[in-house]
């Protein structure tokens, strides 16, 4: 831990500070957006978007390397694929009469496969691993600025439309009867999730971003009494596991994203075990009385 703290203040290691800042800024999205994704049961949809993003990254690398669109950054391709897949998922979810899950799984699989195929045809070496599992030590100042802007947008929207989002997630039909534009709220959530997934994948990678959008929120859900409490609790849990994960990864020379997600999973499972124990104690006390 002390080595990590020393590295944070070492002027020669700015990427460590960037990594920590990325973790803290990502925690706001993991906490606020992750709580909504969890209670609205959109984790599968977010998973499909995050995996489809690899297709956009692969396409951008391919077009840039072939000189068709020189200098095209992978994040642009990722953003285009994320928004397109979110739109497609939104259309399928709202309009498809059947086989919604098959269509969403197809978007998940085709996006990933396209990414691998484009990378295979990209001259030079394009390593899918850093996109799949993240490389937090390569976070740029631009990434941090974008994360900060998205944090601000998500927090402001969450404050302004908290009651509507809560109602739509709790009982969609009733919310619609109260005049809440439920389809609009759903599509806005999908769009925000798509953009967030693109920015968050630099931190933990495509494969694990969905874990961080659900595990801290589910952990906070053990104790939260409201959706707002869940958002705050999940943000705090994300800050703890992100910072702790980075410190462990630095000390043990391990991939940071994988350590952070493992830690988040361990905290979630410890929470489940504690909750189970508390429930058993409560039952035996009532039985004795």
């Amino acid at each position: 831990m002390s080595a990590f703290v020393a590295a944070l203040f070492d002027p020669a290691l700015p990427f460590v500070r960037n990594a920590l800042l990325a973790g803290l800024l990502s925690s706001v999205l993991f906490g606020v957006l992750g709580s909504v994704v969890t209670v609205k049961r959109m984790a599968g949809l977010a998973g499909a978007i995050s995996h489809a993003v690899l297709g956009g990254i692969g396409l951008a690398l391919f077009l840039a390397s072939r000189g068709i669109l020189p200098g095209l950054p992978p994040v642009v391709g990722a953003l285009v694929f994320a928004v397109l897949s979110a739109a497609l998922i939104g259309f399928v979810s709202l309009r498809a009469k059947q086989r919604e899950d098959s269509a969403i799984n197809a978007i998940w699989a085709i996006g990933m496969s396209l990414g691998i195929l484009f990378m295979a045809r990209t001259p030079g070496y394009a390593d899918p691993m850093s996109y799949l599992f993240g490389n937090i030590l390569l976070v740029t100042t631009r990434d941090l600025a974008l994360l900060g802007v998205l944090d601000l947008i998500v927090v402001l929207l969450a404050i302004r439309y908290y009651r509507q989002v809560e109602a739509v997630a709790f009982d969609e039909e009733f919310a619609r009867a109260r005049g809440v534009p439920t389809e609009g709220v759903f599509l806005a959530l999908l769009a925000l999730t798509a953009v967030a997934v693109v920015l968050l994948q630099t931190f933990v990678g495509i494969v694990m971003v969905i874990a961080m959008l659900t595990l801290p929120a589910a952990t906070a859900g053990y104790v939260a009494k409201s959706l707002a409490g869940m958002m705050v609790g999940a943000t705090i849990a994300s800050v703890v596991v992100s910072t702790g994960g980075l410190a462990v990864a630095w000390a043990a020379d391990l991939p940071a994203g994988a350590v952070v997600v493992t830690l988040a999973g361990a905290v979630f499972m410890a929470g489940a075990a504690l909750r189970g124990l508390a429930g058993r104690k409560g039952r035996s006390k009532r039985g004795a009385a």
Partner: protein
Amino acid sequence: MKVAIRFLDVSFSYEQVSVLDKASFHVHEGEFAAIVGQNGSGKTTVLKLIMGLERPSGGQVEVLGGSAYAARPHVGYVPQLPAYDPSFPVSVRDVVRMGVLHGLTEKRGARATVDRALERADVSDLADRPYAALSGGQRRRVLVARALASEPRLLVLDEPTANMDAASENRLYKVLGELKGSTTIVVVTHDTGFVSDLTDAVLCVGDRAGTGRSIVRHTAEPAEHAPPELYGGKAKRVLHDVSVPDPGRCKECSE
């Protein structure tokens, strides 16, 4: 008497399946109406048409003097116990507050309105408890409070007593009895034999007419030997063999 709900030759179908075929009926303001019919007869569709959640394929639906869509802010809705996620962190007060929503805004004075609704539905003592910790009967009364939070002129309840114990059913009908007169109440039930003694109008969905179903108005008379578990024994027996013509208006209607 002013008309709260009027169906004039309303038809509705889900894709190729016809549900209603030229159904007409009306309910006066302040009345307590029961919409009865077998499971799958189309009762919930009638409710959705009243709430503007579905549009008729033919005919006209009028609610509180305008379109069903325009009347939405003044209609309180109590759904059948909706499937909910028991891990959803939400208190009773927050659930009731959902009734104050009006599109992307909230009605002013939400807190006081919510407190009033909790009190009227007799659930003030549950306000700070997690919704998931309640019994089925308590949850149903919380959903009534949520509907009352919108201070509705028309209250619509879908199978409000399904799977409810007799004590909870009595408490619910006591609340509805206190509302009767000041609020138009429409209750949907699959019990075609008996209705609550609060009931002024019985509308039976299910008699086939043409391709879809019609809605027929029946009369009801006090049932002296109603099962005590039904509406606390204060029930009316539906007389299915006596139909009252209802073309969507009557001589008591004031237009």
